[in-house]
């Protein structure tokens, strides 16, 4: 395992730092998230060594988790979906003059949980990859089906919308020349579409442009912002004592939720917050500045980030929007994440994983003393910031193929992303489906070819059956869970 040899190379140290630095800024900035950030950066990295590029992008991914909490605490505006929970008590802590403590606990909690998460990733990776090698096309198809089902049902309130989003992504993936038959599909006579719809075009459109449009609307509506300068950046002994267990719990919840496909970080933070509140002796104080409500979710979202790297690296299955973009980056460099990667390019995989240890340390340093620096970014007027992001999006998309058709397509997806946000259709399933669509169809057809068009091949092996059952569970979950909750809360109400 010579991953550290790779990770400690000066050039990779530089890229780790760059990634973490940019990630923090992206996390702090409203209007752009890690998915968009990675997407915009991919074309710039085309000339680079793939390992270095991936190290940088991973840095952006987990770095953004650190940055997002800063805005949650200081101005009650989460930079990321996964920082929403942090704002609940974090902002209150800031109002009580304990902003420094909130920032500190979120940075330290993230560091501890993140480091433990990476250790867990290291430990789990090899055995999981070994299992994955036994997967044939039928098993892979079932696995991808399960991943898509999980993401559809766990993001947002409506599984129907999740399914629609997923299927739309799969449909977009079918545009282009079908590899197995040479037949063009849905290209409508447009030659540029023969290679399909560019992945980056969709990502930049949905996540960067779409997000900017939504934020422009919010900006015009007049979001008032109160920026509070932080107090001393340290925790009292008592705050430490109260935070340790939430960090541990949050880390565990986060990691396991991250490994499971489906909006890992966001739901992990919600779970952590709920758990802390339930366990607490003073649940009614949650929402007024309880440090447990910051420590837990922050640990959870960082652990979830590490957790979501597990299926990406070992199985080649991304579990969230951002990991889907990361996977897209892998594919663009001609690298297929999955069990074979461990055999063919262990230096890349372990270099990447080990760079995460280093990155976590860098982020701790960046986020404690240097936090004031990042907060200054927020002073840039929103109107200017959002406009600049649009210009950067244009550069990013144009730099791929130099054709303006893709610019217009990106804009189209931007409008789509804006509309989806307004009507609560989740975006992550669509991006995931887009990334997996081609492979999914190939697996499906390969499996059917091997079995001679016999659909029973999908229920042939134990693995496929298990995955299919889990898929059904995922789909039924949103229907069953509310019933369970009602049934559970029944007896509680009669107590009061």
């Amino acid at each position, binding site marked *: 395992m010579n991953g550290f040899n790779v990770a400690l190379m000066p050039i990779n140290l530089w890229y780790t730092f760059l990634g973490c630095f940019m990630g923090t800024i992206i996390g702090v900035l409203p209007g752009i998230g890690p998915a968009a950030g990675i997407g915009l950066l991919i074309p710039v990295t085309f000339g680079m060594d793939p390992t270095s590029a991936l190290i940088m992008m991973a840095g952006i991914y987990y770095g953004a988790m650190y940055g997002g909490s800063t805005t949650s605490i200081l101005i009650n505006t989460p930079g990321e979906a996964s920082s929403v929970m942090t704002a609940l008590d974090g902002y209150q802590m800031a109002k009580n003059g304990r902003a420094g403590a909130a920032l500190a606990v979120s940075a330290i909690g993230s560091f501890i949980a993140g480091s433990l998460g990476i250790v867990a990733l290291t430990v789990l990776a090899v055995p999981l990859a070994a299992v994955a090698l036994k997967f044939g096309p039928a098993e892979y198809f079932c696995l991808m089906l399960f991943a898509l089902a999980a993401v559809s049902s766990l993001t947002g309130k409506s*599984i129907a919308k999740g399914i629609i989003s997923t299927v739309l992504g799969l449909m977009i993936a079918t545009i282009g020349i079908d590899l197995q038959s040479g037949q063009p599909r849905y290209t409508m006579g447009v030659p540029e579409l023969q290679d399909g719809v560019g992945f980056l075009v969709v990502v930049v459109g949905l996540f960067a442009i779409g997000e900017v449009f939504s934020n422009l*609307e919010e900006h015009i509506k007049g979001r008032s912002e109160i920026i509070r300068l932080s107090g001393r950046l340290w925790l009292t002994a008592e705050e430490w004592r109260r935070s340790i267990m939430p960090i541990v719990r949050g880390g565990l919840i986060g990691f396991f939720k991250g490994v499971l496909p489906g909006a890992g970080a966001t739901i992990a933070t919600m779970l952590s917050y709920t758990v802390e509140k339930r366990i607490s002796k003073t649940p009614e104080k949650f929402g007024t500045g309880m440090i447990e409500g910051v420590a837990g979710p922050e640990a959870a979202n960082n652990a979830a980030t590490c957790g979501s790297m597990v299926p990406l690296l070992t199985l080649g299955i991304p579990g969230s929007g951002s990991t889907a973009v990361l996977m897209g980056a892998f594919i663009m460099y001609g690298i297929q994440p999955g069990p074979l990667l461990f055999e063919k390019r262990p230096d890349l995989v372990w270099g990447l994983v080990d760079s995460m240890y280093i990155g976590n340390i860098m982020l701790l340093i960046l986020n404690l003393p240097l936090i004031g620096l990042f907060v200054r970014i927020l002073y840039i*007027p*929103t*109107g200017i910031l959002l*406009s*600049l992001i649009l*210009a950067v999006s244009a550069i990013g998309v144009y730099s791929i193929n130099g054709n*303006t058709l893709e610019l217009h397509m990106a*804009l189209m997806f931007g409008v789509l992303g804006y509309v989806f946000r307004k009507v609560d259709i989740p975006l992550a399933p669509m991006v995931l489906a887009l990334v997996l669509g081609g492979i999914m169809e190939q697996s499906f057809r390969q499996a059917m070819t091997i079995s001679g068009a016999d659909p029973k091949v999908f229920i042939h092996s134990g693995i496929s059956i298990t995955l299919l059952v889990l898929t059904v569970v995922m789909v039924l979950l949103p229907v069953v869970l509310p019933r369970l909750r009602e049934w559970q809360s029944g007896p509680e109400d009669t107590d009061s």
Partner: protein
Amino acid sequence: MRTDRIISGLTLLLAAVYLYATSRIPTLEIGDPLGPKAFPILLGIALVLGAILLVIETLRAHPADTGEKPRESLHHLWLIGGVTLWTVLYFSVFDAVGYLVSTSVYLLVMTGVFNRGKWIANVLTSILFTIGSYVLFVKILGVVLPRGILSF
């Protein structure tokens, strides 16, 4: 709820269009038994199911969940529409006029609208960003950006 029904309708329409386009794909019987149409047909069916599921969800929604959002001000939609049109214009002339000119004009107007009144900051940002990004991306990173009407 009304929007959800519109979504269902549009989705069904899309599914119909997709399935129709799928039926137009010529089928060759060589090699894999399924051909290029099989997977898309499954997708079309899945989309229809999704739309139906959405309708079921709207019908089953508890009254407490609904609470129709107050009618969003149409003014904001006009604004986003305007931004979209302005961006379409920007993208259309991007190649012909070149990065430097098109981007500076684009940013000048955008910042003028969204950062009203701060002329100096807006003009400075628009020009400096455009030049700075051009230098960074073209000269340092080797990205190709259109020159357009300028000679350098």
